[in-house]
């Protein structure tokens, strides 16, 4: 392999890392909810989208009200505004759509989740229109060279923030009382309730935390690609869910691993599948590649790479 090839490989790996960080952040939302409720919250992708669009609107507002503010400050404030909005949204969704169906047959909340997803997409379409909005470049966009690969400030920020948030979440879940309560609820809801855990509160908090992470992920995606629109959550949510399953649904470490892995597979797959198959499959099979790997992993190891962790259903 020539030096150029190595550079290209490094670039693809870095791209995959950035992509994977975003997937991981969103996958955590899916996996946490599945862990405590056994429910796939299809609406989570849309919460991410609302986070991105809210940040877009707040950013625009700030530019009008306080024109002199430096870019990084604007995007920080916009994110800080988007997080509570998404937290509230996640809380409302759980209370209105999922809590009444908590003891209903599994299919009911699943369909409801899909319904909420569609509802949110259309609400976003009504508020922000159907056009693609360009997300302003708040951070410098000039790339800098790292061993022959190009990186931008946005990408570095994405990885750093994602790692920080995931570390924070791990700390929360494994080292605090709240985290212990969450783990207990995830293990066995009724027993945890008997032990004095407020199940409803814990579940709400799970949704709130997941949505907060989703909001940050939404802003990162919008900043990275420079576009935000009402439909951006759908495919992202689907892939993040895939990542969560790949790593082991319900397992936080699994979500992180699955996300990073999926990002890498997509990036390397799209880059090299053409060469590997001699041109039979092109780079438009990028998604096929990712889902194919998912199928293989699930067939060989059905509980995902790091093992499933779901609530025991009495």
């Amino acid at each position, binding site marked *: 392999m020539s030096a150029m090839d190595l550079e290209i490989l490094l670039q693809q790996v870095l791209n995959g890392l950035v992509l994977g960080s975003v997937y991981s952040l969103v996958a955590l939302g899916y996996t946490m909810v599945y862990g405590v409720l056994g429910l796939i919250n299809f609406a989570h992708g849309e919460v991410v989208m609302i986070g991105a669009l809210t940040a877009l609107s707040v950013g625009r507002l700030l530019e009008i009200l306080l024109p002199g503010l430096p870019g990084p400050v604007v995007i920080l404030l916009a994110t800080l505004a988007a997080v509570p909005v998404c937290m509230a949204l996640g809380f409302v969704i759980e209370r209105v759509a999922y809590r009444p169906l908590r003891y209903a047959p599994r299919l009911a909340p699943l369909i409801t989740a899909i319904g909420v997803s569609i509802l949110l997409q259309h609400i976003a379409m009504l508020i922000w229109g159907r056009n693609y909005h360009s997300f*302003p470049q708040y951070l410098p966009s000039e790339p800098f060279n790292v061993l022959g690969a*190009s990186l931008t400030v946005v990408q570095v920020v994405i990885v750093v923030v994602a790692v920080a948030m995931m570390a924070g979440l791990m700390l929360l879940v494994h080292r605090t009382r709240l985290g212990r309560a969450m783990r207990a609820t995830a293990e066995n809801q009724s027993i945890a309730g008997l032990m004095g855990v407020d199940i409803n509160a814990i579940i709400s908090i799970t949704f709130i935390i997941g949505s907060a992470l989703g909001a940050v992920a939404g802003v990162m995606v919008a900043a990275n690609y420079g576009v935000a629109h009402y439909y951006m959550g759908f495919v992202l949510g689907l892939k993040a869910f895939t990542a969560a399953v790949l790593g082991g649904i319900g397992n936080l470490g699994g979500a992180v691993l699955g996300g990073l892995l999926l990002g890498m597979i997509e990036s390397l797959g799209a880059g090299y599948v053409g060469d590997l198959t001699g041109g039979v499959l092109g780079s438009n099979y990028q998604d096929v590649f990712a889902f194919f790997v998912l199928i293989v992993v699930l067939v060989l190891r059905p509980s995902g790479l790091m093992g499933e962790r779901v609530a025991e259903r009495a």
Partner: protein
Amino acid sequence: MNRSRVAIVTLAALAALGLAGCGKEEPKPAPKEQAAPPPPPELSIKIGHVAPLTGNIAHLGKDNENGARLAAEEINAKGVMIDGKKLKIELMGEDDQADPKTGTVVAQKLVDAKVNGVVGHLNSGTTIPASKLYSDAGIPQISPSATNPTYTQQGFKTAYRVMANDVQQGKVLGEFAVHKLGAKSIAIIDDRTAYGQGLADEVEKAAKAAGAKVVAREFTKNDATDFKAILTKIKGRRPDAVFYGGMDAQAGPMAKQMKQLGLKTRFMSGDGGCTPEFIKLAGDAAEGFYCSQAGLPLDRMADKTFAERFKKRFNAEVQIYSPYSYDAVGVLVDAMKRANSVDPAKYIAELPKTSYKGVSGNIEFDDKGDIKNGAITLYDIKGDKLNVIEVIGGAPAAPAAPAADAGKAAEAPKADAPKAEAPKAEAAKK
């Protein structure tokens, strides 16, 4: 005693309401039939318009629909007479989501509604499957933006388009890249839609014929936003130019990502990427971009007041194809006038004989349904604006007449003269 008073009051109130209601209804028919002579009977027709109104190119779909809508409103306002009756166009605007499956469902819906003509669709990928349905039903279809050659090669008597097609566009782009930009190696990406793939194939053919090497042929999907993997691979091949066959919603992020990856080479696209929206999405990565449009630049079109009227009516800039959807409606109505009938079976024979002076220029069709003398305009982007580099093809330029004159010119298609008056009528009505 009380009850009868209540009854009387109620009756009086109802009578008052009834009279008031009557009073309100009278003014409505007035705008059309003010004068003493019996008003001409109305001839109501439905013209269907199909474009993606949701999804990532909704802004282009809306642009097309607005153009058609403006035409319908202006024609309704000025009063075109066909067979002794005043024409009233009802525009049925439908959304096909740029999806071929939805496109055929919508086409069937329009066929079932027995529309008198169709302007659409926007994407080649939806226009081509839908054209079969319209052909089977004998409903004339004029597309204002589908450039894929296959559309008119199917041999349908109902299929027409009012701008140049991708055989011409691809040739112009490929030759421009090699001869004017001096590119010896080109990387080509397309979005695997009928349009993107078709145009990319034509560009590849033309570039190879002109002597360049195609060092990469990559693909994406028409809703993807992450192109880093493909662009990284292309970066490794070091091309002199990168061509993207697809729409602005992706070309924009693609340009951005090229910059992020440090892929410093010329970036080109076809008409799908040649819009103001591209500049918005690409940000500062739009500088130095080359693209083409199938048609004349807006400020060289025959009717220079179009952009103004459009802006006034819709409070939006022309994106790209609204002048063509506007003209498509005009062509349909013009054929109806010459046949003196709105029945598709009767006026379809008039379409091949069309010689219509539209906003975009003189429209005549060849035997396949393509426009004669279609022009391709090459643009570059400098200073966040699309600048015309060159116009290739097109009818010999008509003497540049100021907008007012263009309206008054006494020509056979009467559609022209009233157009200049129509905006005034519109303004008066408002």
